[in-house]
């Protein structure tokens, strides 16, 4: 007793401000709940891993769509025009026309496909070989595949399209944009599907974290009862569980990022090889800083929401008996 009094006299207690008490309390609770997780490293890791995979999945698919879009976007400018010539154009004239077109500044190259060559290809690939043999003569025209030069703008492409169409030998000019548009439409659908899937996976994360914290609450039921018995509010007994949810979300988000980056690392080699084959310098688009931050943010939000939701339901129920 005497010792205590002396200590009091020597060092008068400095009154801490309520804010600093609140802050240091939160720091100690957050570290406490972190310590609790580290006491069961395996099960904590499992839950973090489940959250990470659930977050990484939509993030990865989103990245694939983003890359597909950027690659297909570059294809827009490298479209070929298929110029189908009239049936009565002789093969020599057609070849001459091809050479003439190739002279143009806005044209990179012209490939001549003769009618017989086209029919041969069609027989080989269509599977109608025998039926096509029955035809009295070749219904296919000669074709010029015109590849526009790299310097074209979309306006100059339209002009080229028109001029090719106005040639007297031309029957029809086809631009292969349709499949690009279809491809983009498909990507849009995939994007929508990701959004829906991601929402479902988000619900899954809330449920996983909620359930984990529910078990945690059951395990610490006695502690909660005792704490409430000596005057703890619902908010007080809730706090460590909210922090647990926060940590699950944060580590889940960080691990999801690690998974996505590891996946990118694994793909780097094959993509470089593919790019080499196409003699292009396609590089994988990685996540932007905002996207990476969003994954972590979503993880933390879902973790907090899951624990908030569960504790709101269960804390009220546990009352001292």
């Amino acid at each position: 007793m005497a010792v205590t009094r002396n200590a009091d006299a020597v060092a008068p207690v400095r009154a801490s401000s309520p804010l600093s008490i609140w802050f240091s309390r939160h720091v100690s609770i957050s570290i406490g709940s972190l310590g609790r997780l580290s006491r069961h490293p395996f099960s904590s890791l499992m839950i973090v891993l489940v959250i990470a995979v659930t977050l990484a999945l939509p993030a990865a698919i989103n990245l694939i769509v983003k890359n597909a879009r950027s690659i297909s976007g570059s294809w827009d400018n490298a479209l070929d025009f298929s110029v189908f010539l009239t049936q009565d154009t002789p093969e020599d004239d057609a070849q001459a026309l091809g050479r003439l077109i190739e002279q143009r500044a806005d044209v990179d190259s012209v490939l001549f496909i003769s009618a017989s060559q086209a029919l041969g290809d069609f027989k080989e690939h269509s599977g109608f070989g025998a039926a096509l043999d029955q035809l009295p003569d070749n219904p296919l025209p000669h074709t010029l595949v015109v590849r526009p030069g790299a310097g074209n703008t979309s306006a100059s492409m339209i002009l080229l399209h028109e001029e090719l169409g106005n040639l007297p030998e031309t029957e029809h000019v086809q631009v292969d944009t349709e499949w690009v548009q279809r491809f983009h439409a498909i990507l849009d659908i995939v994007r929508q599907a990701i959004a829906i899937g991601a929402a479902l996976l988000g619900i899954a994360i809330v449920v996983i974290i909620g359930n984990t914290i529910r078990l945690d609450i059951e395990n610490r039921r006695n502690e909660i009862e005792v704490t409430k018995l000596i005057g703890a509010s619902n908010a007080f007994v809730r706090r460590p569980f909210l922090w647990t949810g926060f940590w699950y979300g944060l580590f889940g988000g960080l691990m999801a990022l690690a998974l996505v980056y590891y996946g990118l690392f694994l793909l780097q080699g094959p993509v470089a090889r593919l790019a080499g084959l196409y003699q292009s310098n396609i590089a994988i688009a990685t996540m932007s800083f905002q996207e990476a931050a969003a994954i972590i943010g979503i993880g933390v939000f879902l973790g907090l929401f899951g624990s908030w939701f569960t504790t709101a339901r269960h804390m009220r129920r546990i009352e001292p008996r």
Partner: protein
Amino acid sequence: MIQLENATKRFPGGQEALSGLSLSVDKGEMVFVTGHSGAGKSTLLRLIALIERPTSGQVIVDGQNTSRVKRRKIPAYRRQIGMVFQDHKLLYDRPVADNVALPLIIAGVGHREASRKVRAALDQVGLLHKEKQRPETLSAGEQQRVGIARAIVSRPKLLIADEPTGNLDPDLSLEVMRIFRRFNEVGVTLLIASHDISLIDRLGCRRIALADGRLQQDPEEEVDPWL
């Protein structure tokens, strides 16, 4: 400090734990509640601690009618009362000092001030040298003293105890009662449920005898045969 006016507690099954009980405990009193198990001692303490509310009648503690304390205000209400339990109700995952500090942490007392008060409380029950130990390494008597230190650490005006010596041998019981006596001497009001009549008589405190949820009309019946 405590007034019960015609307080009745009826459980859903229909049986009455307390039947129209009226009693009063003054400020600074040290009062024992005796009676067989099932007489209503625990229910009386539970009504005071607001673990239960009376079915009818009134329980007034330090001027507050417990029936009017809102659910959200119950934690703040309980913080005014120190509580000691037969089974100690300590948290076994943390050291003695952290157990004693719990009411202060709940009340939002700063770390420095809390640790000073914890040491003072442990000193009062003679366990200052065990502050870093885990409760399970302590004897039953020591654990009960930790429970008492936790109950008094925030200096409540009222302390209620439910069979605090129920698991202790006579020497340890006397020790615990002496500690209670010291708190009473500095003005704390105590209400202690116990069936250890010989011990109560040695302390010479007022006794409220309960039987079947009512005040016992003839307390002499219950006199300890050894006295």
